[in-house]
């Protein structure tokens, strides 16, 4: 009798630990409650992400009649054109190349400022972080346009070099791929720095002290402890920068020539210039799938949990 009462008491205790009864019908970990809490986000995702993509996917099979006019007669012509015309695949490869270069440069250039902000003993570290965010207060288009005043023939650099007599003709620094990558770096570096910084902040500093106490030099401690532990942040930053760079179209439009266009510009011109929505939708879905594929492969080998950790999770 005493034993069964003890068992009953234990069962109730476990039940109380697992479930917090809120009223007669609901419990804290009730699956119905979980669905209700998730439902708003789920609905938002369905209506503003899944459905628009589905509509775009359907559009890829529509028939283009003339500029601004299409019919719902189903055709595979748009996909056929994409797969048989090397113009599109050429731009896709070029876009991936520019995206990869930009992401790598962001990684190399962004790691050191992040490390500095993390390692500094400056009392007002928040000021340094604030400086990272300050560019976001200015419109992205204006930030991009500002490079014209810096790199242009009448820009700061050329005017200074000409006045100092270092050059006799202005250097062609604008409207080329270099200018596009520079503009993308300007736009994406804060994302990389913040990712790496968050990752560095998660490192237990006693590990570095332990490495030093066991005879590691500062460089060895960085190589053996700090760098490996900050890799998730770097990886997350690389993925983010690659996807954003490969999907951009404003920067190449403003800082590049026609030849420096990226795949996003092809989509823009097809939809906005040719008013050919079915083909524009096809190109959009292609970019979405290709970038999704890269993100999937990346997370498969890097581990999604590591990347999420890098993103501050």
């Amino acid at each position, binding site marked *: 009798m005493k034993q069964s009462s003890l068992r009953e008491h234990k069962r109730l205790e476990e039940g109380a630990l697992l479930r917090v009864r809120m009223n007669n019908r609901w419990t804290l970990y009730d699956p119905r409650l979980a669905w209700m809490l998730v439902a708003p986000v789920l609905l938002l995702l369905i209506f503003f992400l899944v459905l628009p993509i589905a509509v775009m996917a359907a559009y890829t099979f529509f028939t283009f009649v003339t500029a601004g006019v299409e019919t719902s007669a189903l055709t595979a012509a748009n996909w056929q054109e994409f797969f048989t015309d090397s113009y599109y695949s050429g*731009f896709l490869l070029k876009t991936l190349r520019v995206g990869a270069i930009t992401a790598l440069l962001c990684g190399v250039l962004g790691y050191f400022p992040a490390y500095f902000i993390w390692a500094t003993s400056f009392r007002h570290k928040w000021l340094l972080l604030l400086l990272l965010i300050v560019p976001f207060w200015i419109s992205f288009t204006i930030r991009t346009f500002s490079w014209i005043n810096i790199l242009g023939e009448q820009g700061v650099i050329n005017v200074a070099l000409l006045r100092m007599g270092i050059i006799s003709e202005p250097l062609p620094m604008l409207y080329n791929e270099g200018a596009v990558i520079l503009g993308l770096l300007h736009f994406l570096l804060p994302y990389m720095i913040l990712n790496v910084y968050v990752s560095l902040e998660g490192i237990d500093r006693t590990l570095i002290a332990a490495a030093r106490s066991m005879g590691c030099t500062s460089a060895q401690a960085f190589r053996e402890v700090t760098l490996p532990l900050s890799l998730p942040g770097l990886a997350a930053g690389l993925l983010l920068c690659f996807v954003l760079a490969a999907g951009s179209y404003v920067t190449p439009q403003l800082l590049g020539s026609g030849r420096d266009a990226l795949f996003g510009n092809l989509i823009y011109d097809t939809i906005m210039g040719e008013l050919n929505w079915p083909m524009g939708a096809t190109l959009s879905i292609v970019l979405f799938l290709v970038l999704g594929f890269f993100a999937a492969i990346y997370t498969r080998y890097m581990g999604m949990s590591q990347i999420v950790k890098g993103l501050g999770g």
Partner: protein
Amino acid sequence: MKLTTTKRLERLHDRYANGDLSRRTFLTLTAAAAASAGLSMPWMGRALAAVEEVRFDGWGGTVQDAIDKFAFQPYTAKTKIKVVQGTFGDEDEIITKIKTAKPGDYQVIHSSGVNYYIKYVNGGLTSEINEANIPNMANVLQPMIEPFRKLTPKLSAVPYDYGTTGIAYNTKVISPEEAKEKGAALLLDKKYAGKVGGYSDMTTRVWYAALATGQDPNNLKDMDTIWAKVRETRDLAKKFWSSGAELMDLLSKGEIVVTDAWSGRVAALQDQGHPIGYLDPAGSYAWMEDMLILKGSPMTECEELINFMLDPATSIAVAEGQSYPPSLDPTKVKLTDKIAKLPAFDPTGTMKALTFADPVYWATNEDAWTKQWNRISKGA
């Protein structure tokens, strides 16, 4: 004049007070009006509210500044109807937005003439104007109205101004004599490689390639030669600009020294004191612009606005401000000396001195040529 709900009820009350209406009928009609107001959907309220404002989308920059200052602001002061404005750099851009919006979201467009009018017609985006509501149309040049009427006997647009896309050049680098001698060939002069610009627009590129190859822009015989010339200009060009603001920026900063350019924008640069010359070579690309009313717009208010804009005093002030000649017939309305000196101005009112694009011919080839131009512009 369209009656407001308040006005209708006031008239109803007057009729009841004068004994023209029985008490029962008056109460029935008033109750019906109240019910319809009470049961109205949210969009009905917005639709009624829209009458208090008209949406206008134009080319921005100096052109829209002039329209706003000399037409919209006085119009709002007179009628209390606000003109909500938007801008675009390329008309295809606004057509895309219109397609994705509800009828009535976009109402009046400062459109690029007959070439674009066809696109609105094909897309089922046009309205039908009641010309009786725009008495000032009587002063508009008939040669400008006729091409529109050929496409739709019931007009959806009213011509408002015209201009040319000629050659603009930096006078510090290129003399007026050299510009006159070379004309359209300036855009292909290797001496200016890397300093050439151009409008990133299929029609302009093909038009100037036609002039360079000695072909009639409205009857092109050899497209291979045309595309070869387009590629030649592309290889010499530093940048193909895509808006009037970008054109002015490139020219004023000296990034380019020669480009095809919109006459009004060049006039604005000249007014600002920049050393820019302008030349209309033989066969220079002439175009007209119109005020187009889209389907679903509040027609009465839009027609009233356009009539106000066509009023000679308003139209002349806008023309002087935006540096494009107005669509007013100079044989019917006395225009100013300043307008007479504007590039492209035709004092005869026949428009025979200007070469416009044949809308049907260009519309037939538009899709294929735009696609080809987009590829060439990207290095193909």
